[in-house]
C-alpha cells in the first residue's frame, strides 16, 4: 500500500513537471510580452513580468494592421470550419444511407485527396486563383479548403452506428430523408460536430503557406503572416516585447476554442480512434 501511494505521488510529480516544461516556452513568451524594449534585452534574461503588456499590444496592433488581420483570420477560420462540417455531413449522409451508382468509386476518390495536400498542386492552384481574379480575396483563402476528408470519415463512421430502426421509423412516418437528416441525424451528431469544429478551426487558423502566396496587401493578410511581418526588417534587434504581444494574440483564439470544447473534442477523438 505504501509503495502504491509512493508511485502515485511520483506520477503526480512527473505530470506537473512535464506540464511546466511543456508550458515554459509560452510562459517565457508571456513574460516577454509585458516588458519594455530595454527589459527584453536585459542580461541575464528577465523572468519577472513587467507592466507593458497593453502598450506592446497597441504597438503590435498598429505596426502591422493587426486588427484587420485578426478579423480576416477569424472570418476564414469560422467560415471554413462551418462549410467543411456542412459538406462533410451531407456527403457522409449520402455514403451511409443511400445506395447509388458510382458510390464505390466516389467514396475512395474523396479519400484519395488525403494524398493531395497543397504542396503537390501548389502552382496550378495558385494559377487558378489568378485566373478567377481571386488573389487578395477571401475566396482564394477559403475555397480550396472546403472539402474535408477527416470530416467525411468521422461522420461516416458515426452514421454507420446509428440504428436502422431510427431511419425506418422516419420513413414509415412519411418523413423525407432531408427532414430526417436535419431533425434527427444532425442533432445526435453534436459531439462529433463540436470535435470537428475544434480540429478545423485550429487547422485553418494555423494556415501559413497558402495565405502567404495568395495575398500580398496589408488588408488581406492573416494573423500568422502578421507574425512574419512583425519579425521582418529587424534582423539585428527585434522588438521581442512587441513581437510576443502579437504572438500572444495570435495563439489566443484557437486555445480558447480548444479549452471551451475540450470535452466534445476528447470524446470525438476517442470515438474516431475506437474503430
Amino acid at each position, binding site marked *: 500500500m505504501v509503495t502504491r501511494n509512493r508511485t502515485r505521488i511520483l506520477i503526480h510529480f512527473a505530470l506537473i513537471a512535464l506540464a511546466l516544461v511543456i508550458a515554459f516556452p509560452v510562459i517565457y513568451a508571456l513574460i516577454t510580452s509585458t516588458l519594455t524594449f530595454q527589459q527584453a534585452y536585459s542580461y541575464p534574461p528577465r523572468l519577472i513580468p513587467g507592466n507593458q503588456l497593453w502598450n506592446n499590444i497597441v504597438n503590435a496592433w498598429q505596426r502591422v494592421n493587426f486588427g484587420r488581420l485578426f478579423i480576416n483570420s477569424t472570418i476564414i477560420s469560422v467560415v471554413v470550419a462551418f462549410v467543411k462540417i456542412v459538406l462533410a455531413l451531407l456527403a457522409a449522409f449520402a455514403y451511409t444511407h*443511400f445506395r447509388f451508382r458510382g458510390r464505390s468509386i466516389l467514396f475512395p476518390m474523396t479519400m484519395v485527396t488525403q494524398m493531395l495536400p497543397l504542396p503537390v498542386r501548389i502552382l496550378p492552384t495558385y494559377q487558378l486563383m489568378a485566373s478567377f481574379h481571386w488573389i487578395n480575396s477571401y475566396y482564394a483563402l477559403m475555397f480550396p479548403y472546403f472539402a474535408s476528408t477527416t470530416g467525411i470519415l468521422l461522420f461516416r463512421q458515426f452514421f454507420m452506428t446509428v440504428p436502422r430502426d431510427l431511419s425506418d421509423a422516419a420513413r414509415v412516418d412519411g418523413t423525407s430523408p432531408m427532414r430526417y437528416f436535419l431533425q434527427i441525424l444532425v442533432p445526435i451528431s453534436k459531439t462529433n460536430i463540436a470535435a470537428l469544429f475544434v480540429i478545423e478551426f485550429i487547422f485553418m487558423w*494555423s494556415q501559413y503557406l497558402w495565405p502567404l502566396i495568395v495575398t500580398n496587401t496589408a488588408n488581406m493578410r492573416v494573423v*500568422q503572416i502578421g507574425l512574419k511581418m512583425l519579425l521582418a526588417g529587424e534582423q539585428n534587434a527585434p522588438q521581442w516585447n512587441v513581437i510576443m504581444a502579437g504572438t500572444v494574440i495570435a495563439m489566443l483564439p484557437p*486555445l480558447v476554442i480548444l479549452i471551451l470544447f475540450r470535452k466534445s473534442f476528447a470524446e470525438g477523438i476517442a470515438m474516431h480512434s475506437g474503430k
Partner: protein
Amino acid sequence: MQEDRFPGHRYLPYILILPSVAIIVIFLVVPFVQSVHQSFFTSTAFGTRTIFVGLRNYMRLFSSPDYHRSIVTTLVFSAFVILIGLSMSLAIAHLLNQRIRGRGFYQIALIWTYALSPAVAGTIWALMFAPATGIVPYIVAKLFGGYVLNWMTNGKLALLIVAAAATWKMLGYNIVFFLAGLQNVPGELLEAARVDGASGWLAFWRITFPMLSPTTTFLLFVNMLYSFFQVFGLIDIMTRGGPGDATNILVYKLYRDGFLYLNSGSASAQSFIIFIVISIAAVIQLRVATRKAVYAR
C-alpha cells in the same frame, strides 16, 4: 456494405455529394493533373512561352547536389520529429492513462500545444534561442563555461533547434491520439497479464503497444505530413531555410523555386516527387491500419 435506407430517391445522394466532389475536382484533382503536366515543360525567362522538355526537370533535380541535400535535410528533420515526438508523447500519454486524481486537468495541461500554430511555435522558439538575449543561450553559456550557442551560423545546430521546436508543437496532438488509443485497450487483458505475473514493462510491450498499432500507424503518417509540409511556417519564421541551406527542407525549396525564382517546371517536378513519396506512405498506412485493426478490436 451500407444498405439503402431511403429507397426511391435516385438523385438525392448525388446532390448530397456534389458540393464535396466539385471542390475536390476543381481545387485538388485538376490542379494536381496540371502540376504533373507542367513538370514536363519549362518556361522562358518572362513566362511568355513554354517548351516541352520531357523528363529534363526530373533529371536536373536528381543530379543537383542542392536537391540531394534538401532530401537528406528533410529525412533527418522528419526522423527527429517523428521518432522523438512519438516516443515522448507515448510515454506521457501512458503516464496520463493511470487512475489518478485530477486527470482532466492534467490532460488539458499537456495537450494544449495542439492549438498553437507552427508559426507561433517558431516565433516563441526564436525568442528563446535568440543569440545574446534568449534564455536558452544564456543557460547554455552558464552551464558549459561560456559556450556560444550560435545557430545563426551553425547549420547542424539550426536544424536541431528547428526540429525540437516542431516536435514540441506536435506533442499535444500526439498525446491526444495516444491517450484515446490507450483508453481502448481493455483493462481485463492487462489485469490478466498482471495476475500471470507479467511486469508492467512486459505487459506494455506485449499487450498495449501491439494493440496501439492502428493509432501509431495513423500518427506516423500524420507526423510525416506535418514534418514535410505544415512546418513551413515554423521554418520561414525561424531560419528561412538557412543558415546556408541547412534547414532548406523540400517544401521550402519548392516554395523558393516556384514562387521566388519562378522556376515552374522544376517546382512542378518537385511536387510530383513529393506526391510519390506521400502516396507510398499512405498506402502502407492504409494497409497496416486495416490489417491490424482487425485483431486489435
